[in-house]
Protein backbone atom coordinates (compact mmCIF):
# COMPACT_ATOMS: atom_id res chain seq x y z
CA UNK A 1 0.00 0.00 0.00
CA UNK A 2 2.75 2.45 0.91
CA UNK A 3 4.41 1.91 -2.48
CA UNK A 4 1.13 2.70 -4.24
CA UNK A 5 0.75 5.81 -2.08
CA UNK A 6 3.93 7.23 -3.61
CA UNK A 7 2.68 6.98 -7.18
CA UNK A 8 2.02 10.32 -8.86
CA UNK A 9 -1.58 11.17 -9.72
CA UNK A 10 -2.59 9.87 -13.12
CA UNK A 11 0.25 7.36 -13.22
CA UNK A 12 -0.26 4.42 -15.55
CA UNK A 13 2.00 1.48 -16.06
CA UNK A 14 3.98 1.34 -19.34
CA UNK A 15 3.29 -2.38 -19.79
CA UNK A 16 0.14 -3.63 -21.45
CA UNK A 17 -2.66 -5.39 -19.67
CA UNK A 18 -2.08 -8.99 -18.71
CA UNK A 19 -2.73 -11.87 -21.08
CA UNK A 20 -5.81 -12.87 -19.10
CA UNK A 21 -7.30 -9.50 -20.14
CA UNK A 22 -7.68 -10.76 -23.73
CA UNK A 23 -10.19 -13.53 -23.01
CA UNK A 24 -12.20 -11.30 -20.70
CA UNK A 25 -12.21 -8.41 -23.19
CA UNK A 26 -13.06 -10.51 -26.25
CA UNK A 27 -15.83 -12.29 -24.35
CA UNK A 28 -17.35 -8.94 -23.32
CA UNK A 29 -17.25 -7.60 -26.90
CA UNK A 30 -18.68 -10.88 -28.26
CA UNK A 31 -21.54 -10.75 -25.78
CA UNK A 32 -22.26 -7.14 -26.79
CA UNK A 33 -22.10 -8.10 -30.48
CA UNK A 34 -24.49 -11.05 -29.98
CA UNK A 35 -27.02 -8.89 -28.11
CA UNK A 36 -26.74 -6.11 -30.72
CA UNK A 37 -27.27 -8.61 -33.58
CA UNK A 38 -30.27 -10.12 -31.79
CA UNK A 39 -31.87 -6.69 -31.28
CA UNK A 40 -31.12 -5.63 -34.88
CA UNK A 41 -32.72 -8.81 -36.24
CA UNK A 42 -35.70 -8.23 -33.95
CA UNK A 43 -36.05 -4.66 -35.31
CA UNK A 44 -36.01 -5.82 -38.93
CA UNK A 45 -38.44 -8.66 -38.11
CA UNK A 46 -40.83 -6.30 -36.32
CA UNK A 47 -40.75 -3.89 -39.28
CA UNK A 48 -41.83 -6.63 -41.70
CA UNK A 49 -44.18 -8.63 -39.56
CA UNK A 50 -47.95 -8.50 -39.61
CA UNK A 51 -48.30 -10.22 -36.25
CA UNK A 52 -48.05 -6.98 -34.28
CA UNK A 53 -50.88 -4.44 -34.26
CA UNK A 54 -49.88 -1.95 -36.99
CA UNK A 55 -49.74 1.34 -35.03
CA UNK A 56 -47.72 -0.49 -32.34
CA UNK A 57 -44.82 -1.20 -34.71
CA UNK A 58 -43.13 2.25 -34.39
CA UNK A 59 -43.37 1.95 -30.60
CA UNK A 60 -41.75 -1.49 -30.70
CA UNK A 61 -39.01 -0.14 -33.01
CA UNK A 62 -38.27 2.76 -30.65
CA UNK A 63 -38.09 0.38 -27.68
CA UNK A 64 -35.71 -1.97 -29.55
CA UNK A 65 -33.55 0.97 -30.67
CA UNK A 66 -33.24 2.30 -27.11
CA UNK A 67 -32.35 -1.20 -25.88
CA UNK A 68 -29.67 -1.57 -28.55
CA UNK A 69 -28.21 1.85 -27.74
CA UNK A 70 -27.97 0.73 -24.12
CA UNK A 71 -26.14 -2.44 -25.18
CA UNK A 72 -23.69 -0.38 -27.26
CA UNK A 73 -23.09 2.04 -24.38
CA UNK A 74 -22.33 -0.72 -21.89
CA UNK A 75 -20.39 -3.24 -24.00
CA UNK A 76 -18.67 -1.02 -26.62
CA UNK A 77 -18.33 2.39 -24.94
CA UNK A 78 -17.90 0.88 -21.45
CA UNK A 79 -20.20 3.38 -19.74
CA UNK A 80 -20.64 1.50 -16.49
CA UNK A 81 -21.37 2.20 -12.84
CA UNK A 82 -17.68 2.02 -11.87
CA UNK A 83 -16.53 4.89 -9.59
CA UNK A 84 -14.27 6.39 -12.29
CA UNK A 85 -17.29 6.45 -14.63
CA UNK A 86 -19.58 8.63 -12.49
CA UNK A 87 -18.86 11.81 -14.44
CA UNK A 88 -19.46 10.06 -17.78
CA UNK A 89 -22.82 8.73 -16.57
CA UNK A 90 -23.87 12.18 -15.31
CA UNK A 91 -22.88 13.83 -18.60
CA UNK A 92 -24.81 11.13 -20.47
CA UNK A 93 -27.89 11.64 -18.27
CA UNK A 94 -27.80 15.37 -19.00
CA UNK A 95 -27.36 14.67 -22.72
CA UNK A 96 -30.33 12.30 -22.72
CA UNK A 97 -32.45 14.97 -20.98
CA UNK A 98 -31.56 17.56 -23.64
CA UNK A 99 -32.22 15.08 -26.46
CA UNK A 100 -35.67 14.24 -25.05
CA UNK A 101 -36.61 17.90 -24.54
CA UNK A 102 -35.39 18.77 -28.03
CA UNK A 103 -37.02 15.90 -29.94
CA UNK A 104 -40.31 15.56 -28.05
CA UNK A 105 -40.63 19.33 -27.59
CA UNK A 106 -40.19 19.94 -31.31
CA UNK A 107 -42.60 17.19 -32.39
CA UNK A 108 -45.20 18.26 -29.82
CA UNK A 109 -45.08 21.99 -30.61
CA UNK A 110 -45.02 21.47 -34.39
CA UNK A 111 -47.92 18.99 -34.29
CA UNK A 112 -50.03 21.55 -32.42
CA UNK A 113 -49.06 24.31 -34.83
CA UNK A 114 -50.05 22.15 -37.80
CA UNK A 115 -53.33 21.34 -36.07
CA UNK A 116 -54.15 25.00 -35.37
CA UNK A 117 -53.12 26.39 -38.73
CA UNK A 118 -55.76 27.82 -41.08
CA UNK A 119 -56.17 25.37 -44.00
CA UNK A 120 -54.73 26.58 -47.31
CA UNK A 121 -58.07 26.86 -49.17
CA UNK A 122 -59.42 29.17 -46.42
CA UNK A 123 -56.32 31.36 -46.74
CA UNK A 124 -57.13 32.16 -50.36
CA UNK A 125 -60.65 33.23 -49.34
CA UNK A 126 -59.27 35.73 -46.80
CA UNK A 127 -57.08 37.39 -49.37
Amino acid at each position, binding site marked *: *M*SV*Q*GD*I*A*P*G*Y*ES*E*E*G*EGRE*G*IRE*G*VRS*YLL*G*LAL*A*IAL*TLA*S*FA*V*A*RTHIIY*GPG*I*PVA*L*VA*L*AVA*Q*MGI*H*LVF*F*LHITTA*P*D*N*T*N*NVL*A*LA*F*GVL*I*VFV*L*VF*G*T*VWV*MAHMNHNMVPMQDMTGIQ
Partner: protein
Amino acid sequence: MNSVALPADSPGSGHAHSHAPGHGAGGPAAKRIVVAYGFWIYLISDIIMFSALFAAYAVLAPATAGGPSARQIFDPNSVAIETACLLASSFACGMASIAVGQRSMKWTQISLVITGLLGFVFLLFELREFHALVARGDGPTHSAFLSAFFTLVGCHGLHITAGLLWLGTMMAQFYAKGFRRDIQYRYMCFSLFWHTLDIIWVAIFSLVYLVGMNL
Protein backbone atom coordinates in the same frame (compact mmCIF):
# COMPACT_ATOMS: atom_id res chain seq x y z
CA MET B 1 -11.43 17.02 -2.11
CA ASN B 2 -12.91 16.07 1.27
CA SER B 3 -11.78 12.63 2.26
CA VAL B 4 -14.48 12.23 4.85
CA ALA B 5 -14.21 8.49 5.02
CA LEU B 6 -10.55 8.55 5.98
CA PRO B 7 -9.10 9.89 9.22
CA ALA B 8 -6.94 12.96 8.59
CA ASP B 9 -3.71 11.24 9.60
CA SER B 10 -4.28 8.05 7.64
CA PRO B 11 -1.38 7.32 5.28
CA GLY B 12 -3.72 6.97 2.32
CA SER B 13 -5.46 10.32 2.52
CA GLY B 14 -2.82 12.38 0.71
CA HIS B 15 -2.98 13.59 -2.89
CA ALA B 16 -0.80 10.83 -4.20
CA HIS B 17 -3.18 8.11 -3.10
CA SER B 18 -5.04 7.13 -6.22
CA HIS B 19 -7.94 4.85 -5.40
CA ALA B 20 -11.48 5.51 -6.59
CA PRO B 21 -10.85 8.73 -8.50
CA GLY B 22 -14.02 10.72 -9.06
CA HIS B 23 -15.25 10.49 -5.49
CA GLY B 24 -13.02 13.27 -4.29
CA ALA B 25 -10.90 11.07 -2.08
CA GLY B 26 -8.24 9.94 -4.53
CA GLY B 27 -6.73 13.14 -5.83
CA PRO B 28 -6.82 13.99 -9.54
CA ALA B 29 -8.17 11.27 -11.80
CA ALA B 30 -5.85 9.42 -14.17
CA LYS B 31 -5.15 11.27 -17.42
CA ARG B 32 -6.80 8.46 -19.41
CA ILE B 33 -10.05 9.12 -17.54
CA VAL B 34 -9.84 12.91 -17.94
CA VAL B 35 -9.15 12.59 -21.70
CA ALA B 36 -12.06 10.17 -22.15
CA TYR B 37 -14.36 12.47 -20.17
CA GLY B 38 -13.48 15.50 -22.26
CA PHE B 39 -14.03 13.60 -25.49
CA TRP B 40 -17.26 12.13 -24.11
CA ILE B 41 -18.56 15.70 -23.57
CA TYR B 42 -17.85 16.39 -27.26
CA LEU B 43 -19.62 13.19 -28.30
CA ILE B 44 -22.70 14.09 -26.26
CA SER B 45 -22.82 17.52 -27.89
CA ASP B 46 -22.58 15.73 -31.24
CA ILE B 47 -25.48 13.47 -30.23
CA ILE B 48 -27.51 16.57 -29.29
CA MET B 49 -26.79 18.03 -32.74
CA PHE B 50 -28.04 14.80 -34.32
CA SER B 51 -31.15 14.91 -32.13
CA ALA B 52 -31.96 18.34 -33.62
CA LEU B 53 -31.66 16.80 -37.11
CA PHE B 54 -33.91 13.91 -35.98
CA ALA B 55 -36.47 16.40 -34.69
CA ALA B 56 -36.39 18.29 -38.02
CA TYR B 57 -36.80 15.00 -39.89
CA ALA B 58 -39.72 13.91 -37.68
CA VAL B 59 -41.50 17.21 -38.35
CA LEU B 60 -40.78 17.27 -42.10
CA ALA B 61 -41.26 13.57 -42.95
CA PRO B 62 -44.91 14.06 -44.09
CA ALA B 63 -43.98 17.14 -46.20
CA THR B 64 -43.33 15.27 -49.44
CA ALA B 65 -44.56 18.10 -51.75
CA GLY B 66 -45.99 15.61 -54.24
CA GLY B 67 -42.69 13.69 -54.34
CA PRO B 68 -42.01 10.18 -53.05
CA SER B 69 -42.64 9.29 -49.41
CA ALA B 70 -40.29 7.35 -47.13
CA ARG B 71 -42.12 4.10 -47.92
CA GLN B 72 -41.43 4.44 -51.66
CA ILE B 73 -37.69 5.18 -51.64
CA PHE B 74 -36.20 3.00 -48.89
CA ASP B 75 -34.55 -0.28 -49.82
CA PRO B 76 -34.61 -2.65 -46.81
CA ASN B 77 -31.79 -4.86 -48.17
CA SER B 78 -29.40 -1.95 -48.59
CA VAL B 79 -30.18 -0.77 -45.04
CA ALA B 80 -29.62 -4.28 -43.68
CA ILE B 81 -26.20 -4.51 -45.34
CA GLU B 82 -25.20 -1.04 -44.09
CA THR B 83 -26.30 -1.96 -40.56
CA ALA B 84 -24.35 -5.24 -40.63
CA CYS B 85 -21.21 -3.47 -41.93
CA LEU B 86 -21.27 -0.79 -39.25
CA LEU B 87 -21.96 -3.24 -36.42
CA ALA B 88 -19.13 -5.53 -37.55
CA SER B 89 -16.89 -2.48 -37.94
CA SER B 90 -17.67 -1.42 -34.38
CA PHE B 91 -16.80 -4.93 -33.16
CA ALA B 92 -13.51 -4.90 -35.11
CA CYS B 93 -12.74 -1.53 -33.50
CA GLY B 94 -13.28 -3.15 -30.09
CA MET B 95 -10.87 -5.95 -31.06
CA ALA B 96 -8.33 -3.27 -32.03
CA SER B 97 -8.77 -1.71 -28.56
CA ILE B 98 -7.86 -5.06 -26.98
CA ALA B 99 -4.87 -5.43 -29.34
CA VAL B 100 -3.67 -1.94 -28.37
CA GLY B 101 -4.01 -2.91 -24.69
CA GLN B 102 -1.78 -5.93 -25.46
CA ARG B 103 0.75 -3.81 -27.45
CA SER B 104 0.31 -6.15 -30.41
CA MET B 105 1.17 -4.18 -33.57
CA LYS B 106 0.10 -6.98 -35.93
CA TRP B 107 -3.38 -7.45 -34.45
CA THR B 108 -3.87 -3.71 -33.98
CA GLN B 109 -3.22 -3.04 -37.66
CA ILE B 110 -5.26 -6.06 -38.84
CA SER B 111 -8.26 -5.05 -36.71
CA LEU B 112 -8.02 -1.44 -37.82
CA VAL B 113 -7.86 -2.44 -41.52
CA ILE B 114 -11.03 -4.53 -41.04
CA THR B 115 -12.70 -1.65 -39.16
CA GLY B 116 -11.84 0.75 -42.00
CA LEU B 117 -12.86 -1.59 -44.84
CA LEU B 118 -16.27 -2.27 -43.27
CA GLY B 119 -16.77 1.46 -42.73
CA PHE B 120 -15.81 2.04 -46.36
CA VAL B 121 -18.32 -0.57 -47.60
CA PHE B 122 -20.99 1.14 -45.49
CA LEU B 123 -20.13 4.44 -47.11
CA LEU B 124 -20.27 2.93 -50.62
CA PHE B 125 -23.78 1.58 -50.03
CA GLU B 126 -24.91 4.93 -48.66
CA LEU B 127 -23.45 6.81 -51.63
CA ARG B 128 -25.09 4.32 -54.00
CA GLU B 129 -28.45 5.00 -52.37
CA PHE B 130 -27.95 8.79 -52.52
CA HIS B 131 -26.80 8.61 -56.13
CA ALA B 132 -29.84 6.54 -57.16
CA LEU B 133 -32.18 9.04 -55.48
CA VAL B 134 -30.56 12.09 -57.09
CA ALA B 135 -30.47 10.35 -60.49
CA ARG B 136 -34.26 9.77 -60.27
CA GLY B 137 -34.78 13.47 -59.52
CA ASP B 138 -35.50 12.81 -55.85
CA GLY B 139 -32.53 14.82 -54.57
CA PRO B 140 -32.54 17.04 -51.47
CA THR B 141 -34.11 19.92 -53.42
CA HIS B 142 -37.29 17.98 -54.28
CA SER B 143 -39.18 18.19 -50.98
CA ALA B 144 -38.78 19.13 -47.32
CA PHE B 145 -38.86 15.42 -46.47
CA LEU B 146 -35.94 14.68 -48.79
CA SER B 147 -33.99 17.74 -47.54
CA ALA B 148 -34.34 16.53 -43.95
CA PHE B 149 -33.50 12.95 -44.94
CA PHE B 150 -30.34 13.91 -46.86
CA THR B 151 -29.22 16.26 -44.07
CA LEU B 152 -29.64 13.68 -41.30
CA VAL B 153 -28.24 10.61 -43.07
CA GLY B 154 -25.65 12.66 -44.97
CA CYS B 155 -24.38 14.21 -41.73
CA HIS B 156 -23.85 10.71 -40.33
CA GLY B 157 -22.09 9.76 -43.56
CA LEU B 158 -19.78 12.78 -43.23
CA HIS B 159 -18.94 11.70 -39.68
CA ILE B 160 -18.08 8.23 -41.02
CA THR B 161 -15.87 9.80 -43.71
CA ALA B 162 -14.06 11.89 -41.09
CA GLY B 163 -13.76 8.76 -38.94
CA LEU B 164 -12.13 6.84 -41.82
CA LEU B 165 -9.55 9.63 -42.26
CA TRP B 166 -8.89 9.59 -38.51
CA LEU B 167 -8.60 5.78 -38.63
CA GLY B 168 -5.94 5.97 -41.35
CA THR B 169 -4.06 8.57 -39.30
CA MET B 170 -4.17 6.32 -36.23
CA MET B 171 -2.80 3.34 -38.20
CA ALA B 172 0.07 5.49 -39.48
CA GLN B 173 0.77 6.83 -35.98
CA PHE B 174 0.82 3.38 -34.40
CA TYR B 175 3.15 2.23 -37.18
CA ALA B 176 5.50 5.20 -36.98
CA LYS B 177 5.46 6.03 -33.25
CA GLY B 178 4.51 2.75 -31.63
CA PHE B 179 2.29 2.39 -28.58
CA ARG B 180 3.22 5.71 -26.98
CA ARG B 181 0.85 6.83 -24.27
CA ASP B 182 -0.39 9.94 -26.11
CA ILE B 183 -1.06 7.84 -29.23
CA GLN B 184 -3.09 5.46 -27.08
CA TYR B 185 -5.20 8.35 -25.76
CA ARG B 186 -5.85 9.41 -29.35
CA TYR B 187 -6.85 5.87 -30.26
CA MET B 188 -9.16 5.71 -27.24
CA CYS B 189 -10.90 8.89 -28.47
CA PHE B 190 -11.17 7.40 -31.96
CA SER B 191 -12.77 4.20 -30.65
CA LEU B 192 -15.30 6.22 -28.61
CA PHE B 193 -16.08 8.25 -31.74
CA TRP B 194 -16.53 5.15 -33.89
CA HIS B 195 -18.78 3.35 -31.38
CA THR B 196 -20.88 6.50 -30.97
CA LEU B 197 -21.41 6.70 -34.75
CA ASP B 198 -22.76 3.16 -34.58
CA ILE B 199 -25.19 4.25 -31.84
CA ILE B 200 -26.40 7.10 -34.06
CA TRP B 201 -26.81 4.65 -36.93
CA VAL B 202 -29.00 2.44 -34.68
CA ALA B 203 -31.30 5.45 -34.26
CA ILE B 204 -31.22 6.17 -38.01
CA PHE B 205 -31.98 2.65 -39.23
CA SER B 206 -34.72 2.15 -36.63
CA LEU B 207 -36.44 5.53 -36.62
CA VAL B 208 -35.85 6.72 -40.18
CA TYR B 209 -35.71 3.57 -42.32
CA LEU B 210 -37.73 0.90 -40.47
CA VAL B 211 -40.39 3.27 -39.10
CA GLY B 212 -40.48 5.02 -42.52
CA MET B 213 -41.20 1.74 -44.29
CA ASN B 214 -44.23 1.23 -42.06
CA LEU B 215 -45.84 4.63 -42.45
